[in-house]
């Protein structure tokens, strides 16, 4: 894929029923015939990302969904999902990732990398890049790592689902929510 076409599709959103689905910059198919990444357990070292890349990606994910009173990308193990992804369905995007991170890091003073900056510094740098395709790709991967089924490597202990208030049950019975609680017989 040429840089131009990659940029084009990273910037082109589909629109299903106008609902903004696959909002812009969704990089779904750097997929290129690969299979989904597999689950990995907590203690397992990263298999596909080198330490410096992983540190930058983890820091970016942490800025997208920060930790705090409730778990964020770090506690959900988003980096483990990303590691699997770049060894699997996103492997075609590894050069793009490397170029993008290099561009960010080369703009920093001295030998600093993104991961070395303090919180405010990371936010300032990310603010300069958050309209670009690299951010779009990592934003998407952060969300998948946070909210996809844990078998894909992230969303550990359902941390992402708990954040949302999504409870994964096999089934439910009414009432479903506050506004329908008085609407059901019995």
């Amino acid at each position, binding site marked *: 894929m040429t840089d131009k*076409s990659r940029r084009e*599709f990273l910037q082109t959103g*589909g*629109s*299903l*029923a*106008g*609902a*903004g*689905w*696959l*909002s812009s910059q*969704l990089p*779904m*198919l750097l*997929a*290129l*015939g*690969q299979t*989904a990444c597999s689950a990995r357990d907590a203690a397992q070292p990263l298999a596909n990302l080198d330490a410096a890349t992983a540190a930058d990606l983890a820091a970016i994910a942490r*800025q*997208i*969904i*920060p930790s*705090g009173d*409730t778990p*964020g990308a770090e506690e959900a193990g988003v980096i483990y999902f990303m590691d699997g992804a770049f060894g699997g*369905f996103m492997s075609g995007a590894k050069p793009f990732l490397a170029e993008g991170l290099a561009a960010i890091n080369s703009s920093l003073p001295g030998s600093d990398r993104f991961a070395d900056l303090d919180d405010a510094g990371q*936010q300032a740098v990310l603010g300069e890049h*958050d309209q670009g395709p690299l951010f779009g790709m990592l*934003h*998407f991967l952060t*969300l*998948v790592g*946070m*909210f*996809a*089924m844990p*078998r*894909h490597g992230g969303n550990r202990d359902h941390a*992402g*689902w708990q*954040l*949302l*208030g*999504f409870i*994964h*049950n*096999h*089934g*439910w*019975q*009414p009432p*479903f*929510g*506050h*506004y*329908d609680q008085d*609407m*059901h017989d019995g």
Partner: protein
Amino acid sequence: MMAEGEAVMAQYPLRQEVDFVIVGSGAAGGVLARELSRAGFDVVVLEQGRWRKAQDFTHDEFDVFFQGEMTGSAAGGYPQTFRASPDEPAVVAQNAPPALYARTVGGSSVHYSANFWRMRPIDFNERSRLGEISGTGFSDWPITYEELEPYYTRVDWEIGVSGEPGPFDAPRSKPYPLPPLPVKSSGVLFEKGARAIGLHPQSAPKAILSKPFNGRPACMHCGFCLGFGCEANAKSSTLVTMIPEAVATGRCEIRTESTVFRLVTDAGGRIHEVLYYDSDGNEQAQRCKSAILAANGAETARLLLLSASEQFPEGLANSSGLVGKYLMFNSHVAAHAVFSEQLNEYKSVQCTRIALDFYDTDEQRGFYGGGGLDARPFLHSYPIFFAMSGVPPDVPRWGAEYKRWLEYAFTRNMTVLANATSLPVESNAVSLDPDVRDKFDLPALRVTYRDHDDDLATVAFLQDRAVEILEAAGAEKVWRDPVIPQTIGPHLLGTCRMGDDPAQSVVDRYHRSHEVPNLYICDGSSFVSSGRGQPTMTIQALAFRAAEHIARAANRGEV
């Protein structure tokens, strides 16, 4: 249930000339297979997908939506290309396929939301009522609502539909077999808001069981209808309704992972063989007395174009030049809201209340079109999708404020979706891509589509009403999706339209090709106009009706 059926499933040798080969096992193909095998005919159904069953279905949002587990993807060897107009180069769609459908036994009836609207009399004769609309192929159907009504009722009772009469319903000869599904919080709020602005909300009809029916259980409200297969067999797909009954006749073989690529005609211009690739990619040929295409409004047209020959240089059954043309997606747009208390829209079916007050075209509005509004989560009941696109324009997309929004709004949001007409525009089309090929080295499906300006005006009008409903219901915050042309359509309609005039249509009023006497075509492609959204019920009613006529013609030796 399925296991019993499989035990007796017929198996036909390739060289045996079966009565019917049906291409596709979806909403229409499943009905046709069951009806014709019950009528005593030998039937082979060629289905490109696998035979997934309830136990194979998951709630895995990533696999289903982002890896195209059932819909296929460019990366998986099923590229589709898209362009907004014939003047533009078509590019391979990198997100979901533009013509979105499920490759699996039962077809898209497996993964749809099961919204199940009947059309109304006006949908069949609107051209006569309103007159010509220049630049479009706006036409009446050759059949009326009254002719189709008995078959709508058969669908209700044969597959199991839940609902109750609404204030604007067309006449029906029999009540719904099942009461409506329990109302969700989105339905309660929608009803409140709609009444406050003078509308007439009603229960949403669904092809999902509210009570046990025909040996299948009631819905357990898991919340994974849209895009997913039903783990409970409560969604009335052909996978769990028609197909097991077809197989149980002992005369119907469902041959899976069989991708049809050519219909072969003899010197007399009649189909005698259907060519397909089997699961190993080997070419096979099934002989038949006649063929029925029910492969959906995109693949049916593509297959006819792929079947071009010396005798039929523009594609099979295409002397009108209309195969693939007049593609209609139905037009859509959404408005979203959050409320102060939890709705938990991730539970239960997509939609429990609708309003059809704006169904008819109102010439006072200054444009053609009409539609319905429904209350639902749409894709925002799913965690990844919600985090991607459930965020209003004034909330940041990352950081602490974004996280607070996710925590607050996932359980408190709902959507009102406008579902409306599409005008038939000749340049909106399915065709063969000249450059891109799929995993079988066949020309890829190319979609050319831009919503007609009247369609965009219609959904913009409906979106204004959606916002009024949400505000009147007491929303804390309301926001809109932009009204923009669609690039993906799960409703694939109009590409082999039905009509009496062979120059202006592809099939006759009984779904027989005007040109190839032993070829029938029955699926979304048969539509002449789009209806107001939710086409599946009409596709299935057409299939019951077509099966009756096809069986009669075959018994008379006229096929």
